[in-house]
């Protein structure tokens, strides 16, 4: 096929429809061909890369390497994906798993971000930050949930699936993360984000 890969629209913020994802995945699994992979890559990578950039900020993990690792891991496990969630949600879960492994390899577990701990200490709260930077300063557990829930709109059930945590944990970490963000951004409760 010549044309489709060139005209394959990048998702531009709209999630691709699930049925065509299924067909592309089926085509890939059947032939392991390059074009099917490129189509999937182009559909989802801008979305995954944005998450990768935010999920790795200040942690010494390259978002480019993380995106590569995500695709490698995803293709390794693609035939075990059962479509019980959106394909993109599953990919995001793979990405966070790879990120956590990269942090462990570098000697920093996902919950031991020294930058985050330092930055969210009370003394730093007077400094006003923009929202994107403030999110990167949250402890990892809060940051991941805030990213997925508040930024990317995942319901708590999907956040829980992606991060492999309980739904209740997602809710509580989202709430605490939001509180911390408001402090970081200089507001008390609401209206801190700018």
């Amino acid at each position, binding site marked *: 096929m010549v*044309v489709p890969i060139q005209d394959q629209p990048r998702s531009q913020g709209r999630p691709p429809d699930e049925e065509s994802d299924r067909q592309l995945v089926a085509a890939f699994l059947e032939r392991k061909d390059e074009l099917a992979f490129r189509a999937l890559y182009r559909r989802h990578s801008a979305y995954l890369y944005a998450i990768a950039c935010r999920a790795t900020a200040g942690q010494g993990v390259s978002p480019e390497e993380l995106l590569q690792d995500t695709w490698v891991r995803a293709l390794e496990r693609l035939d075990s994906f059962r479509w019980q969630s959106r394909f993109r949600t599953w990919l995001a879960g793979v990405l966070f798993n790879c990120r956590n492994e990269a942090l462990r390899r570098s000697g920093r577990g996902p919950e031991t971000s020294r930058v985050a701990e330092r930055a969210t200490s009370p003394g730093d709260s007077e400094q006003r930050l923009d929202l994107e930077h403030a999110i990167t300063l949250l402890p990892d557990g809060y940051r991941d949930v805030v990213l997925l*829930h508040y930024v990317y709109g995942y319901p708590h059930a999907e956040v829980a699936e992606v991060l492999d945590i309980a739904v209740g944990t997602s809710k509580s970490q989202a709430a605490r993360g939001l509180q911390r963000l408001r402090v970081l951004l200089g507001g008390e409760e609401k*209206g801190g984000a700018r």
Partner: protein
Amino acid sequence: MKDREELTRAEQAAFAALANEIEPPDGLEDDTLRLLRQRRLVRSGGHWWHAPRPAVWGVALAACLATLIIGIGVGRASVEPELPRASFILFLHAGPEFDAFSDANFAARFEDYNRWVAETRGSGHFITGEQLDDTGVMILPDGRGGIVERRVSAGPDGDMLGMFLITAADYDEATRIAQTLPHLEYGGRVSIRRVDPV
């Protein structure tokens, strides 16, 4: 328990503004593909329509041997070597009526083109195919002894989108094969050119 709905409007807007996508760096797609090939997660050898080379060479070798054996068996004079089939390139263009690909129709079209490739390969006419980047560069004389570069892009009024290389006896057969391309059903255009053996 605070939830997304409990954000202030300003907060909702601020979070929504971050929900953008970020294009990965140029080259990362190819680097990732290279890595996947190394790990044998993607078949090497380019696009799936590339001829499976060992099989092609095997068939070619068998054909040569068969011709040689037949020639030996019936005598040199009685065997006229078959004229080589000509190669033709089918250039695919968008054209003004081209129905652009979308998320909704992409997968189905993917299968349509793939089926065409399989059928054309099955009939022994398919050699290879290549898709082209959306954009490229044309270089041409600037009229003052220098060279000027112009950016070209695929599209209704632009450059070609890709090509298929096929074998056929003549233009009639090449045209019949080209007429079965799903590209035409979607309003695309195909130009057919024989590869000059010289």
